[in-house]
């Protein structure tokens, strides 16, 4: 089968197309013929060795990036109970770990998958794995977003952000969505109650009494976010690299803080995402679709840091 192997950590030139053996499956796994792969910022950060996860994966040979897939089950181990050959499935495979999704076939634990809802395409399903799980786990696992809460979502037009906005609305919270002015209409259409143009408005000077901040910008944005939170509020940060001063600022306000949230593959969470997608309560927005032989372009698009919604690669 064709796969994209990461020859060494570094630039896009290290993404090498190779013919390798199809993966073997164990008794709890299924083999999936991959139809769509979604690309996430962590793909780039592992490629260029800026994510802590890169160190854990360094010893794999071959090292194959990618975690989000949608596709069809073509083989199943004898202890697999939830899926059968022919089922259409999607999910985030083996995160935090070696996903091996940049390939024509991938093996996956059945715990990491859900049936793809019939009303959405493989492209849409692949787009709704890691980013949607991150948003959900931020609001339900790492923090607790409640219906009476006011939530500030940074980068709300991005991959995680646009899912977070929809999930927060579904929970019933009052959503303040931060993005550039060009994405104002996009986030308001997704249901944001209030928009903040981060390029012209200093949110830390205009907002206060926020219950929950989803922080995905990094650097000084963490402490600015702390400033707008209520005492005992919640901050969940998605980026690595928090500082001791960040911790102190959050502690001084007695926040429920998660300084570096890590999304994880989990059966009940992906099934919950599937149910939201199936009922139309959650809709992925896909701004770019590339072919499998254009993986480098997909990486460059994510690297801009200005992608609206998701980037998907189709096989």
């Amino acid at each position, binding site marked *: 089968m064709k796969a994209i192997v990461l020859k060494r950590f570094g630039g896009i030139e290290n993404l090498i197309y190779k013919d390798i053996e199809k993966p073997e499956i164990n008794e709890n796994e299924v083999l999936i013929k991959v139809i769509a792969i979604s690309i996430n910022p962590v793909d780039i950060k592992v490629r260029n060795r800026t994510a802590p996860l890169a160190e854990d994966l360094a010893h794999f040979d071959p090292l194959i990036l990618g975690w989000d897939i949608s596709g069809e089950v073509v083989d199943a181990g004898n202890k697999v109970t939830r899926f059968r050959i022919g089922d259409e499935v999607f999910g985030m495979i083996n995160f935090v770990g070696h996903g091996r999704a940049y390939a024509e076939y991938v093996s996956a634990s059945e715990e990491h998958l859900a049936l793809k809802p019939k009303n959405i395409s493989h492209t849409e399903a692949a787009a709704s794995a890691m980013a949607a799980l991150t948003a959900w786990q931020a609001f339900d696992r790492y923090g607790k977003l*409640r219906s009476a809460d006011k939530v500030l979502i940074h980068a709300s037009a991005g991959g995680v952000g646009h899912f977070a906005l929809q999930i927060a609305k579904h929970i019933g919270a009052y959503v303040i969505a931060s993005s550039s002015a060009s994405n104002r209409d996009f986030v308001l259409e997704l249901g944001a109650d209030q928009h903040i143009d981060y390029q012209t408005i200093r949110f830390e000077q205009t907002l206060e009494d926020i219950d929950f901040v989803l922080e995905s910008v990094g650097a000084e944005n963490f402490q600015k976010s702390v400033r707008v939170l209520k005492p005992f509020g919640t901050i969940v940060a998605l980026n690595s690299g928090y500082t001791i001063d960040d911790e102190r600022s959050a502690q001084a306000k007695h926040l*429920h803080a998660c*300084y570096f949230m890590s999304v994880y593959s989990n059966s009940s969470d992906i099934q919950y995402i599937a149910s939201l997608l199936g009922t139309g309560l959650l809709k992925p927005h896909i701004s770019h679709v590339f072919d499998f032989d254009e993986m480098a372009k997909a990486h460059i698009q994510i690297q801009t840091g200005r992608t609206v919604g998701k980037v998907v690669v189709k096989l």
Partner: protein
Amino acid sequence: MESTIENVDPALWKAIAKSPYHQIDYENLLENSPTEIRKEEINLSLKEEPLKIPEHLDVKDISVQSADKSRKIRLRIYRSKGKQDLPMLLYFHGGAFIYGTPEQYDFIFYRLALDIDLMIISVDYRLAPEHPFPAGMEDGYDALLWISKYADQIGGDKDNILIGGSSAGATIAASITQLARDRKEVEIRHQYLLYPPMSQLLQTSSMIKLANAPMQTKRAAEWMWKHYLQHKITQPPKYAVPLLAESFENLPDATIIVCELDPLKDEGKMYAQELQKANIPVHLAEIKGAVHAFDFFSCPLSHNFYAQQIQIFKQILNQ
């Protein structure tokens, strides 16, 4: 926002419902035959698979002399093999002053002692109602003196002693910080208090709003204090009730963790406030979606908390 029972983390709630310990009728037993709880817990623990001690961990029980020469106090020590001069955490298990054992924390301390290179010394202190206050605190204080004096023998650093506890164990730990401050024999660097009961008055707003919360009710709290303080409950002796201290000056820095859906949370916050008024640095955090003793139930919330604890301890130790 109003705290309600519906806000309990669903995965935590599921894990609690599934746990065999959930079958024990703690509230009624606390009132009618408190020591029965020990038996029921032991019966359940005997049915559990024994935990394997990690390869790099030393776990041993030692007995040290109590101030009362006729008795010894058992300490259960967890430490990574071959390391010297480790910071020492003197720990007090929970259990309403009445039940609980150091062993119940093996599943946490086997990992924690390795993940942060910390020696954990868990005290098998005397329990009420047979041994009301000050028995538990005295055992703990004797243990504190012993680890300070013989730190070298166990590979600990006598200048780096932390104290901690869960629930009623945290009450005892806080009492000891006050006693140790006044006696000036040993310096404690930090107090780490998990969901502590801090007052026998039970009149805080969380105690009233969350009187029937899962895992900790107001009624259970009433009986716990009655067994611990007995006829002195109307005028508790010095050190017995941490919030009644005359002075909070010169106590160690503190980490206080309270749970959003625990009736005890306001007492924990009040203690934090008193310490802060006395200019003591306090890290106070409230775990959203959590109930009393949530860290005993396997679910993402408690796994996340474990990771958070490692960060907190690393920060305490690097200060």
